[in-house]
């Protein structure tokens, strides 16, 4: 368990530090964020044709309201956390790659829901928008990351973890009783 958390924290800090470099911002974060805005606009226009994406900004042509997708709302940090958690956990590389691919889709999918919901909440009530933006969606995205990781961990082959003495075993936790496992 300790090894997992240390690896997770080191990976996370390194990836986050790398994300903040001008190079990563220019070649990854900005294009990623612009793509997120474009996807959001494309989805929204299915029901509301008066919405456009300009760079990282999602704008309504009806009332001029716009949201700019900034750091923390582009899902990059959530993806970094998931990436670090999956890479740090002892598992075959094939499982890690599958987990990362599915996990990124799940996290970014919910993040698009966040962007679109905030876009309309902002037009409806700014106080509700602020609450949802600053607190609620932050918690929901992290809950999503945690759930994706838990689901991924459940798909891993147990035999390998047991042989390797995976994180929980090294943390001194006894394996569950068979009855508990069957009913969980």
């Amino acid at each position, binding site marked *: *368990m300790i090894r997992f*958390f240390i690896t*997770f924290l080191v990976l*996370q*800090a390194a990836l*986050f*530090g790398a994300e*903040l470099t001008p190079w990563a911002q220019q070649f990854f974060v900005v294009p990623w964020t612009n793509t997120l805005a474009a996807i959001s606009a494309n989805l929204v226009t299915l029901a509301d044709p008066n919405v456009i994406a300009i760079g990282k900004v999602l704008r309504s042509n009806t009332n001029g309201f716009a949201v700019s997708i900034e*750091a*923390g709302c582009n899902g990059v*940090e959530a993806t*970094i*956390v998931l990436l670090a958690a999956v890479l740090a956990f002892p598992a075959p590389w094939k499982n890690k790659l599958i987990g990362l691919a599915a996990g990124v889709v799940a996290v970014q999918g919910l993040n698009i829901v966040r962007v679109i919901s905030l876009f309309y909440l902002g037009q409806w009530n700014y106080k509700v928008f602020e609450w949802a933006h*600053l*607190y*609620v969606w*932050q*918690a*929901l*995205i*992290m*809950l999503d*990351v*945690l*759930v994706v990781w*838990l*689901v991924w*961990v*459940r*798909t*891993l082959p*147990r035999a390998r*973890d047991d042989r390797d003495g995976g994180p*929980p075993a090294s*943390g001194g*936790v006894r*394996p*569950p009783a068979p009855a*508990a*496992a*069957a009913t*969980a």
Partner: protein
Amino acid sequence: MGGPVARFVLRALAWLPVAFAVWYFAAPLLLWPAKLLIDVIARLWFADIIRGVEQTGAIVTFVTTLKPGQATAASGAVAIDVNALLYSFGLPLYAALVLAAREPHWPRNLAIGYAVILPFVAWGVLADFLKTVAIAAGPLVASQTGFSAWQREVIAFAYQFGSLILPTVVPAIVWVITHRRMFERLRSASP
């Protein structure tokens, strides 16, 4: 998604509004220990620029020794307000996760999480203040802080890490650590 995880998520989603409401209305009390910690850190390491730390509701106010402009006398001092809610929303997230887990000793787990998360709330609030005076407030104020270029880089990183990563990641880490038995059960059950 497996059954146990799905049920856990639904319970967590049900607890989140309750936890957010308690956190919001009890914030002055819940965040008071974090303010005390910030006060201690301010006295120990930033006594030259922080004269006092005050709390009004969820707002932590740093009363500084810094002057707002070039005038050196009788021009007042800079006071910076930081909204501690921005760095403490991990508390309701953690509470919802603990209550959704339905594990024994949940009050103890809540207390452990609260104690572990609070220093990171202090980190976020303090880093926000330092970012404001050292970077965002402009050269007239920043020059009085005496921070070097590399120290401002550290402050910028601490602020970004303290606002974008720590508020949500710390509760998740503490939850996994305090719920290893449940984690094991989830792993053991068939997907």
